């Protein structure tokens, strides 16, 4: 497996411009000769499909939802970063770049991150022109808020529904292209495999979720925009249908998987309230702007929050990190919360949370101003817990939320399989070992609107004529897909799919979650194959393969999680350091922070699938930090 990141030469601020000039173009008349498949219609996928359709490519977009608008991007709450410096507080492209590299704990590729910071400007312009109703000030100009990991105010937002509004903007752009005949939309179609022939991606095989029909779709290039894999933990903030299948199938066909162990645990989620629970709900990180996080100083203090006087409260983030306070990056805020709960300071009926308190914000700004900023989040919280956050502090606890790992891509966002591109959360690219808040929307849209529509042309323009017949390869893959479906249906065991998923999730949370150890990971690597074997023997999937069958859909996804989980543990074990969200208990500084080992681990770990019983093989992309010197992160 060859890893050539193809980073353009020249000074960092000129790389993207120069690359745009040096890339080969497809002339407008020729664009309509190329077929491009986009899988997934979240921010990245919808933006990419709409823009490529607009440019003249023949685009087919696929989603397993009933409509492109349902993608999980819709649930992003807090906002989107852009280095506009509209607040005049000293922001710049370089500062956003710097914050992102540092926030990622020096495990991302500088050139990509710099491009991301540059494109952040275009994204806001584009979204505003589309009519995205961002929050405004009284003068009619755009409002900003602050977010974790930054000391400037650069986050644009639409109440607590920024992801929804940006996705609807991209969705509407996509619908416009569908109307124009430039994009053909396939809803309720799940991609179950990638077809590779003659060393290039040639198309995909899908299952129609309504009829069960397995079909082939060929194309000159395939773009995966299929999101992240936090649901490997079963309980996460991701939507229930989010899964690893598309990227895992691509991995098994030759795409390297980069840093799979980099999974982000979001600090502000509603704590679990019982065994049966199906998912966890995130409360936007923007709440940390005005909310103060604390636990009672006394262990096991059962008094209601308002009866605990100030001097008996520990505002631990403000105490430990005076300059960033409640706005420390996510990994730090999460780990400290876990520490507090583990040490016996947890609050709530299950003693599994910490307080996020708006008492002081309400006193300072008034209830109305607080409601203006966070009203819908407060309402959401009240619906779930029955508590009113204007009166009683919120209870929060970390939960799996985002995955920085993903398929490895070069500067053009192409995977190790030529012709297979990966965008948005599905790739590993820009966030290193920890993503800063309000950066996921930015990356999804940068990839979708502004990067892939140009870089794909560089590939297509160099495709040899007479692309060779791939019919046999499609046939083989179709058969594999059908066989697999039959196998799931014919196991007829005694356990439900969810029971396996929950068991896997608990195992991964305990052994490969917020804190990892060599011993625990080795244990996980012993147990996962056994669980997988039991799954294939004991799973019960009711219904047939020829109709709408949600149990069958779920079974296929869990089967892939059961394979993928093992790779995640291999990666976490091999990365014998702590960095960002990857916290190995063996590697802690005296102050209790993640202790990186730059000597040995300043690289991306890219895994090659070898099949059968063979362990995956690791390849490395070494990372250089020329512009943001390697340093211990400090938010004190």
């Amino acid at each position, binding site marked *: 497996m060859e890893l050539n990141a193809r980073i353009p030469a020249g000074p960092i601020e000129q790389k993207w411009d120069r690359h745009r000039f040096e890339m080969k173009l497809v002339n407008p008349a020729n664009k309509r000769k190329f077929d491009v498949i986009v899988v997934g219609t979240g921010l990245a996928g919808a933006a990419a499909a*709409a823009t490529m359709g*607009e440019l003249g490519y023949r685009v087919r977009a696929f989603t397993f*939802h*009933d*409509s*492109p*608008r*349902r*993608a*999980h991007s*819709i*649930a992003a709450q807090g906002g989107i970063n852009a280095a506009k410096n*509209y607040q005049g507080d000293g922001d710049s492209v370089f500062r956003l770049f710097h914050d992102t590299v540092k926030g990622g704990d020096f495990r991302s590729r500088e050139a990509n991150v710099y491009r991301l910071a540059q494109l952040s400007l*275009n994204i806001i*312009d*584009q979204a*505003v*022109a*589309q009519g995205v*109703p*961002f*929050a*405004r000030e*009284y*003068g*009619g*100009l*755009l409002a900003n808020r602050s977010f974790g990991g930054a000391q400037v105010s650069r986050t644009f937002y639409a109440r607590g529904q920024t992801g*929804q*509004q940006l996705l*609807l903007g991209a*969705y*509407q*752009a996509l*619908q416009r292209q*569908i*109307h124009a005949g430039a994009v053909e939309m396939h*809803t309720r179609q799940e991609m179950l495999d990638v077809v590779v022939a003659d060393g290039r991606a040639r198309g995909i095989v899908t299952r129609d979720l309504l009829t069960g029909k397995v079909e082939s779709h060929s194309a000159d290039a395939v773009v995966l925009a299929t999101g992240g894999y936090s649901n490997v933990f079963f309980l996460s903030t991701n*939507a*229930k*249908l989010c899964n690893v299948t598309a990227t895992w199938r691509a991995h098994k066909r030759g795409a390297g998987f980069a840093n799979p162990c980099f999974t982000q645990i979001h600090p502000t989620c509603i704590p679990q309230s*019982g065994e*049966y*629970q*199906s998912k966890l*709900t995130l409360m936007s990180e923007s709440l940390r702007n005005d909310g103060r996080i604390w636990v009672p100083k006394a262990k096991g203090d059962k008094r209601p929050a308002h009866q605990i006087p100030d001097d008996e409260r520990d505002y631990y983030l403000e105490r430990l990190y005076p300059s960033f306070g409640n706005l420390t990056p996510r990994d730090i805020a999460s780990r400290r919360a876990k520490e507090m709960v583990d040490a016996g300071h947890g609050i709530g009926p299950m003693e599994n949370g910490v307080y996020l308190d708006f008492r002081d914000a309400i006193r300072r700004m008034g209830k109305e101003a607080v409601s203006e900023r966070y009203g819908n989040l407060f309402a*959401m919280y009240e*619906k*779930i817990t*029955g508590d009113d956050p204007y009166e009683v502090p919120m209870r929060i606890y970390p939960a799996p939320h985002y995955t920085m790992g993903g398929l490895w891509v070069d500067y053009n966002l192409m995977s190790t399989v030529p012709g297979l591109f990966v965008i948005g959360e599905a790739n590993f690219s820009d966030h290193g070992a920890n993503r800063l808040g309000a950066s996921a929307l930015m990356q999804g849209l940068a990839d979708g*609107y*502004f990067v892939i529509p140009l870089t794909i042309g560089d590939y297509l323009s160099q495709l040899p004529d007479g692309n060779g017949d791939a019919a046999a390869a499609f046939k083989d893959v179709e058969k594999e897909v059908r066989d697999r479906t039959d196998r799931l249906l014919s196991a007829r065991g005694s356990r439900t799919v*969810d*029971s396996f998923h929950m068991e896997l999730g608990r195992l991964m949370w305990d052994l490969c979650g917020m804190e990892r150890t060599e011993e625990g990971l080795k244990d996980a690597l012993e147990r996962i194959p056994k669980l997988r074997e039991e799954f294939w023997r004991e799973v*019960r999937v*009711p219904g047939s393969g020829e*109709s*709408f069958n*949600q*149990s069958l859909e779920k079974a296929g996804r869990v089967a892939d999680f059961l394979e993928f989980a093992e790779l995640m543990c291999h990666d976490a074990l091999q990365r014998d350091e702590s960095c960002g969200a990857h916290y190995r208990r063996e590697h802690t500084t005296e102050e209790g922070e993640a202790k990186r080992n730059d000597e040995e681990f300043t690289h991306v770990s890219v895994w090659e699938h070898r099949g059968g019983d063979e362990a995956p093989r690791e390849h490395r992309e070494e990372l250089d930090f020329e512009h943001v010197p390697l340093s211990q992160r400090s938010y004190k």
Partner: protein
Amino acid sequence: MRLTLHVWRQSDARDPGRFETYEANDISESMSFLDMLDLVNERLTEDGKEPIAFDHDCREGICGSCGMMINGVPHGPKTMTTACQLHMRSFSDGDEIWIEPWRAQAFPVIRDLVVSRDPFDRIIESGGYVSVRTGSAPDAHTIPVEKQAADEAMDAAVCIGCGACVAACPNASAMLFTAAKVAHLALMPQGAPERYDRVLSMVETHDEEGFGNCTNHGACEVACPKGISVDYIAQLNRDLFRATLSSRPANEAKE
């Protein structure tokens, strides 16, 4: 608590469908309505039966996937709440709950509680956007937007496309859904150039898709989990009136 569920079961559009009754035991009040259905489905699967099909995804009231009639009310008894945000503390021990799919000609049943809402996409497709080429936008601050207009646009833009408005309407009209998008874009300066063509085209598609007319019952506003006001339908009607009076016929205007 212990509940009795009467759930609509229908294997596909051709099947006439029927209610089936299930006992749901050991339901705790902190469960969400969909957690409860998950549990019922787990037990059905263990008993060798086919689980109840229902659309769902984010489970936090924003994706718009879930939607079902609960005791005859879209998304159930709580206002401003989707089915996935409804919690069992809204019910009591011994309750009977009737669960049905959305009922509307334009939303054929796919299976059990799952319906096709494809017409919504086609309504958006026919004009629910601002025609702006990627990369062609001017700096965001060259388009100031009055705060009040932006806020009102946002109040309309929060629509999640769940279809509750259609299910609640005695005419199965999708006018609230259509008006929410028309108003969102009409209230922003960005939407102005296409304002009148948009409303003509979207209303035309709305009618072609088999949705009924709006006769101002207002049931949609009550059912809307995002609290979108019927005032936006009034705004749509004003724009439609103006657009219809203008000299350019819709088709000509579109070209």
